[in-house]
């Protein structure tokens, strides 16, 4: 019995030799997310409240807006890599898999762009 996958199938479904870089990206973005989200928990616990003015004051504070940039970007990257693995593992139909992967990437970029735009807008308007 031959246990190895035929080469044409491997090349059709996977990007060869991209595994190691994905592994490292996943781990490094995990550490980045860990650090920035611990800051976020600390920051949330120290917010006086969540009313409109509280939110604007919080987001516009210089250190907070920079940390939020880091948090949003590194978290989106980590999330994108994670969702990618889940899609690759559970969706087997080739076309659907491809569409879902692309959609996931686009959505992650979209939400990062929206948040970055909003932070800059709030920072400049206060």
């Amino acid at each position, binding site marked *: 019995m031959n246990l190895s996958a035929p080469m044409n199938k491997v090349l059709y479904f996977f990007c060869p030799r991209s595994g190691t870089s994905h592994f490292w990206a996943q*781990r490094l973005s*995990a*550490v980045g997310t*860990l650090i920035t*989200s611990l800051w976020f*928990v600390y920051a*949330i*616990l120290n917010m006086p409240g*969540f*009313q*409109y003015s509280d*939110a*604007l004051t919080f*987001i516009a504070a210089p250190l907070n807006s920079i940390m*939020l940039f880091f948090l*949003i970007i590194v*978290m*989106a990257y980590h*999330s994108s890599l*994670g*969702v990618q693995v*889940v899609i690759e593992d559970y969706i087997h139909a080739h076309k659907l898999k491809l569409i879902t992967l692309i959609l996931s990437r686009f959505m992650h970029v979209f*939400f*990062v762009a*929206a*948040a970055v*735009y*909003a*932070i800059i*807008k*709030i920072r400049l308007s206060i």
Partner: protein
Amino acid sequence: MTTSILHRATGLVLSVGFIVLTGWIFIASIGANFYVGFLEIMGSALGRVLLVGWSFAFFFHLSNGIRHLVWDSGRGFEKSTADASAWFVLVLTVILTTLFWWARS
């Protein structure tokens, strides 16, 4: 064990939570009226349940993620150690989630 699939599940839950996080910032940038609506939704019974769920998922993914990083370094793979760390992660998650909401209240 069960923690493996829970890591994936909480990861997906947190991906949705990420949308709410960016939504919070974005809605704050477009005006007070929208923001009040957002607060109303998140302050409702369903919103509160979701927030507690997200905090639970967050603390689980955080603690179990550290467990995974330790595994990546080649340590903690013995059956007894892995079982013990799984329980440790679960208990730690409950404690951290409780502490978080206690500190926030």
